[in-house]
Each structure stands twice: as C-alpha cells, then as structure tokens.
C-alpha cells in the first residue's frame, strides 16, 4: 500500500534562456508520505514545483499522478488533478475575508450566496479534521502570518487537494508556529494526503519528513529515507562538499562601547509605536544579535539608528559622538560620517539600484568621497578600480564590474553591499538579514567576513529572523518582541527558550 506512488517525474527538463533550471529530473513520491525537497537557493526546487503546479511547462519529460500520465497545462489542470500549492509568498487577497479567499476560483456558481454557505460548512469540517482553525470572517490581512498560511492550506484542501506542495513554508514563522505547522502536516499525512515540502532548512527536513530528495544546480542528486540520513550528509549533498553549519570563532574580546543606544522610541507612519524605549550597547570586538519574528520593531530599530527613519526620542553614541536622534532630522550621510555603516535588510529596496552597473553600486552613498571624484565630476577610473578590488576581495562572481547589478545572484549582490560598507572601515556595522536569499556558499563567506570584522575590533549589530544565524554569529543575543527588547541571552541558550521569548512569552515564563 505504501508503495503506491502519488507523483512520478521522469526526465523533466526546463530551460530559461541560457539557464538550465531543471535537468533530467526523476522523482518518486509515495502516497501518504511527507517528502522533503532540499537544495540551495537557485537549485531549481521552485521551478520544479511550478512545473508540477502548471505554472511553467517542462521542455521535456513525463509527469505521472497516481500512476496516470498527465500534462499539466495550467494551475487549473493541476487543481483538477488534486494538486494544491502553498506558495512561499502567500497568494491571498489581503482585504478579503478568509472565506472569500478560500472560495476564490472555486465559488460553485455565478452567484456567491450558495457557495458561501457550502464553503462555511466545509471549513468547519476541515477545521475539525485537521486542526486548522481560522475565523472564516476575519480579514485575511489582519491575521498573523501563521494563520494566513493556514488559510492557504485550507484553500488547497477546499479544492480537494490530495497532494499538497509547500514552498519554504517556515520562512515567516516563529518556531512554535512552525511546530504547529508540522503537526498539521503529520495529520494530513495520516489522513492519506501526500505532502511535498520544499525547504532549505535541514532541521525541518529531519523533523518532519519521511523521505528527502536533494537538488543541486538543477539536478536531483539523491533521495534518502530521512531516518537513514543525517544533516551532515544532506548538507554535503546540497553543496557538493562539506560545509560548516557552525561558524568558527574564538570567544569575543569586547572593548570599549562603540555603539550605544539610549531610550530609543520610534513611531511609524500609521501612528503605532514600533520601537519602545530600547537601550543597549555594542562593544568593540563583539557581535550583538537581535532575534525576533519579523515585524517586531527590528527593522525600524536599524533604520532609526542609521538615520533613515525619524525617531521620537533617543540618543545614539557612535564611537564617542553623541547624537540626539530626536533633536533634528538626521540624515544617513551625517550618521555615516561618524563611523557607522549599514547593510540594509532589503538590498533591493535600500541597498542597491539593481539597474545600475556593479561599479556604480560599489560607491552608492559614498559618491561624495574625494576618492570617487572631484566636485560634480566622478572619477570613473578610480571608481572602477575600487569596484574591482571589492570583487576580488569578496569573490564576487561574475567578476565584471561593468555588469548590471540585477544580473548578479542574490548572494553576489549581497557581497557587493557588504564590500561597499565594510571596506570603508567603519567603527560600527549595522547589518540586517545578511543572508536572506543567499546560497549556502555565500552564507559561509558572509559569516566569516562578519566575524573577521569583529576580530578586527569593530562593533557589529546583527538583525536576522534566522534564529540559527543569530545564534551562530552573535556573542550576545537580544530578543525583540512588540518593539521592546524583552531579554538578553547567551547564544548557547536553547532554541526553545529563545523561541518562547520571540513569541512574546513573559520573561519569567521563559526562564
């Protein structure tokens, strides 16, 4: 019975221009199992799943669902075959109610009234069967991400999905939310559904899957039974060599405080207090990590310190210079001049102009430096030389500073930003989500670079939603929840304890 196959892929090929995204992919997924697919970013996981969901058409190969050969020409065809997908970025209409989102595309008639009643009953049944409780009349955008994800799962089940594909489902979840998701997935499996879990987090693969397939550079390199493999083996298969999941570093030797923040308060455009009375310091030669679920004030904290976002009150001291953030509108260039560099969380929105050449981005924000030219004129030769030096030192590929920045991969784009900020020799480096959307090889490089900066006696403030990353890099961990720093812990602290703090459990309860 367990030998029945829900999905069988044979020789799937997909090419985007010069890039071979999927090469001769073979995959067998057993019915009623949770099957993981791991691989680095850009390994072709999402492309393969998009083919399975009818978003793209394979150039070649065969797909069999429940033993029957099929062509999946559209999402509609996939839905008809009982395939449901929970996308990494939720495909929800935020100002719709949960019910409206669930029935969209499966309304059951030109008039809504009948379908809505049926859907309400069906949701009740699904909630009971699979522990998927969501208020059907809540506005979707008001729900926490964990619940929004549940709405996505409900959408798929409502359409009668027997095969559920989840693409990086835990990226936005807190550890307790992720655990709840895994419980749901196990229930789904026990009810006979087949679950395909796409992720790059090995811990999740080990925790929840029955079998796991590894993709590397567009190819399916191995399939293992989860119980008979290890994180080490999977990691090695993913990158084709052994990687260090832990960052090697010596104990920190903190010196004088290079960055101190006192009583910082930030109110956002909606009039909500997003950073509340935050004080801390970062000493020379240490990395302080801020852990927290995204949206708890970390982004605003970084932006306020960097001078991008106005603060209501708060004093920041950078390398001995006292700056009252509320006294006058500070601009980022002024703050930078005191010795602070900033690697913003979202490199596309704030860190780079992706349509510019690489060398232009290599000096973005520093274009008034005497090294970049005189007066109104830019010294392009000097700028290109700077850019080439960065490319060499940070192993940015392809090594061509005339290329448009958009043509670099995520990891290499991040290295462009890092090279620009670190090479100006700042006393303090603010760095947000340094490895978001970055492949494992580059992650390793970036982590090493940050530790090297620390060892050179600089102060680093790291904000990341990846708890593993914060724990691996930081010498001290501050946890933010609802705009406040709710606790300070050593990085060795158990993940469960940090997770509770991140989820807003009171400090006493977490201790």
């Amino acid at each position, binding site marked *: 019975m367990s030998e029945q196959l829900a999905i069988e892929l044979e020789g799937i090929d997909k090419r*985007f221009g010069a890039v071979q995204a999927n090469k001769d992919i073979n995959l067998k997924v057993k019915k009623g199992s949770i099957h993981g697919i791991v691989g680095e970013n850009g390994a072709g996981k*999402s*492309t393969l799943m*998009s083919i399975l*969901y009818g*978003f793209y058409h394979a150039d070649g190969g065969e797909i069999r669902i429940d033993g029957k050969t099929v062509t999946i020409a*559209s*999402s*509609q*065809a*996939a*839905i008809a075959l009982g395939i449901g*997908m929970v*996308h*990494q*970025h939720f*495909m*929800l*209409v*935020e*100002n*719709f109610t949960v019910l*409206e*989102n669930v*029935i*969209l*595309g*499966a*309304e059951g*008639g*030109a*008039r*809504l*009234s009948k*379908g809505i009643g049926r859907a309400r009953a069906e949701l009740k049944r699904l909630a009971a069967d699979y522990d998927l409780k969501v208020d059907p009349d809540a506005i979707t955008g008001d729900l926490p991400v964990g619940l929004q994800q549940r709405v996505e799962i409900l*959408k798929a089940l409502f359409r009668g999905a027997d095969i559920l594909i989840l693409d990086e489902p835990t990226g936005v979840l807190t550890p307790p939310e992720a655990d709840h998701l895994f419980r749901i997935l196990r229930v789904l499996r026990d009810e006979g559904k087949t679950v395909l879990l796409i992720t790059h987090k090995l811990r999740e693969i080990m925790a929840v899957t029955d079998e796991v397939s590894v993709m590397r550079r567009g190819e399916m390199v191995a399939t293992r039974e989860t119980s008979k493999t290890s994180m080490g083996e999977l990691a090695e298969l993913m990158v084709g060599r052994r990687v260090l999941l832990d960052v090697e570093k010596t104990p920190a030797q903190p010196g004088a405080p290079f960055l101190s923040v006192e009583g910082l308060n930030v109110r956002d455009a909606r009039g909500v207090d997003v950073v509340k009375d935050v004080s801390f310091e970062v000493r020379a030669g240490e990395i302080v990590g801020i852990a927290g679920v995204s949206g708890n004030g970390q982004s605003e904290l970084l932006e306020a310190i960097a001078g991008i976002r106005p603060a209501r009150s708060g004093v920041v001291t950078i390398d001995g210079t006292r700056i009252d953030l509320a006294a006058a509108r500070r601009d980022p260039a002024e703050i930078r001049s005191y010795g602070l560099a900033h690697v913003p969380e979202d490199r596309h929105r704030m860190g780079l102009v992706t349509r510019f050449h690489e060398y232009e981005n290599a000096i973005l924000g520093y274009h008034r430096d005497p090294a970049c030219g005189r007066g109104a004129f830019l010294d392009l030769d000097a700028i290109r030389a700077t850019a080439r030096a960065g490319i060499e030192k940070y192993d940015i590929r392809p090594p061509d500073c005339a290329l448009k920045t958009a043509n670099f991969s995520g990891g290499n784009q991040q290295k462009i930003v890092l090279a620009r900020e670190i090479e100006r020799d700042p006393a303090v480096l603010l760095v947000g989500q340094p490895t978001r959307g970055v492949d494992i090889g580059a992650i390793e490089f970036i982590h090493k670079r940050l530790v090297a900066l620390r060892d050179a006696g600089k102060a680093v403030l790291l904000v990341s939603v990846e708890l593993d990353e914060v724990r691996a890099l930081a010498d001290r961990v501050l946890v933010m929840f609802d705009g406040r720093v709710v606790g300070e812990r050593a990085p060795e602290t158990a993940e469960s304890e940090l997770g509770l703090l991140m989820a807003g459990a009171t400090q006493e309860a977490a201790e």
Partner: protein
Amino acid sequence: MFDTLILILDSTVRLSTPLLLAALAGLYSERSGVFDIGLEGKMLGAAFAAGAAAAVTGSAWIGLGAGIAVSIALALVHGFACITNRGNQIVSGVAINFLAIGLTALLGQDWFRQGGRTPPVTGDARFETLVLPFADALREVPVIGGIYSELLSGHNILVYIAFLAVPFTWWVLFRTRFGLRLRAVGENPAAVDTAGISVTWLRYRAVICTGILCGIAGAYLSVAQSAGFIKDMTAGKGFIALAALIFAKWKPVPVMFACLLFGFLDAVAIRLQGQQVPGIGEVPVQAIQALPYILTVVLLAGFIGRAVPPKAGGTAYVKERS
C-alpha cells in the same frame, strides 16, 4: 424656497447622471487593477458616435448603441495596450483622451460641416423624458407631490439606468463570482492566477464593462441631455468622475453620493449665475464654476482620509519567474 430647492435638486440629478455613469465605469476597470484616466476620451467618443448615429438614423437607441460600440472599442484599445502588451496605463489613457478630442472634431467637421457639431436631434432621435405614473395627479400634493413629480419623474430613461446601475454594480461586485474575482484581481492578481483563473480575460471583461457604461454616459450627453454633439462637450466630466471615484474610495454607493455632490455644486453654480447673493453681491460665475474642482482638491488633499486604491492598480500582471 421649496420650489427653488426642488429645481436645484432636479438639475442636480440631471447633471450627476453622466458623472455617475462614468464613475461607475471607472470603478469596474480600476477595481480590476487597470487604472483608466481615459474615461473622458471614451465618453467624448461615445457622445460623438451617438450624436452622429442618431442624427443620421433618426433613432436615439441606435445612437446609444453606436456610442456604446465606440466606447467599448476605445476601452479595448486601452486593454490591448495595458493588459496584453503591459503598457503604461496612464500613458495609454492620456493617448485615448487626445485621440478622442482630435478625432471627434475632425470627423464631425468632415461629415457634417457644422463646426464640429452634429446636426440637432429631435423626436425619436433623442431620449424623451419619461413621466412616472400618477406624476401629474400627485403634482398638487404638498412636498411629496413636488418631490415625486418634479424630482423623481420627468427624466429620460438613461437617468434611471444610471441610478439603477448603482445597486446593480454593488450586487455584481459583492454578490457574484465575477465581482469576487474582479476585486481579487485588482488586489492580488497572482492569487487569481494561482487559483486557475485567467487574469487577462478577467481584466478584459472589466474594461468592457467600463466601455459599456462610458458609452451610455456619452450618449446621455449628446442625445438625451443635449440635442446633438458639440465639440469637447464632455468638458472634463470624465476627470470629475475619476475624482468622485477616488473620493468614494472605489465603492459603488459612495460613488453615487460623490457624484450627486459634484452635480449639486454644478447645479448651484448654474442657479447662482447673475444672481445677487445676500451679503456678497453678484458672485462671479467663474468662481462658482470652479467650486467642484476646488472641492475635489480640498477633499482629496486629506479631508476624506487616505483613499487606498486597489493594490495592484496601475501595474500589468507578469507571472513571476521564481
């Protein structure tokens, strides 16, 4: 005093009608994520087509049909540019406005040689006013009689169509499958696409709805409200309608009230022309005519709170390559 009020309100209804039709037209398109500043152009094109067809055939209904056909054609040009070819929606809208201004004047002069006018329409070639049952009998009843026989009765059929389009639009938007999908595609087309629904076809249907309503609005101007087409007869109504749409935050019933408000100001402006206002004296006509525009600016500049447009508005949908 009461009679004056009734008269002003009566003309408010007449003046609001084209605004209401055009604003509801815009609602369909913009709720689907296709911004349309070409309402003005579609209305103008439709007004010309309706005036010309009615004058030639002697039938107001054929005029209406011609107006709708031309308006749909222009809407499809906008759709082809913005949905199929993912062009800039603002540029396309502006282009359609220019096209309509130029083409109506040119063709009007070439066909009829009356300085861009179409020949005056009379009789069956123009929509006549309808008298509601008992309107005459109730005329003498105080208050209610005036309201019924002056305000509610005695309009042409397009006025009734315009006001009936309000509850109808609400019903379509919030009680039908098409409406649900329309609202969804304007907020998050990717959600619609992954649900297995064609974003393109949905948006085309939305701009066709826009075409139909703009066509009725145009026909109203040339073969119902006036007896023939005059050069540039829309005179910015398409833009006022757009303002009303934003002002009403893209909701059908508030759209009606916004249009009535603009129509009311217009009616007051006409009424006050050459009149002595106590304490002020004669108010310059231009000042009053500017009122709706000033009000629009003031209201949009912050008195109505943030008007959040459909989230996906203004951008063409491209399947992401992830």
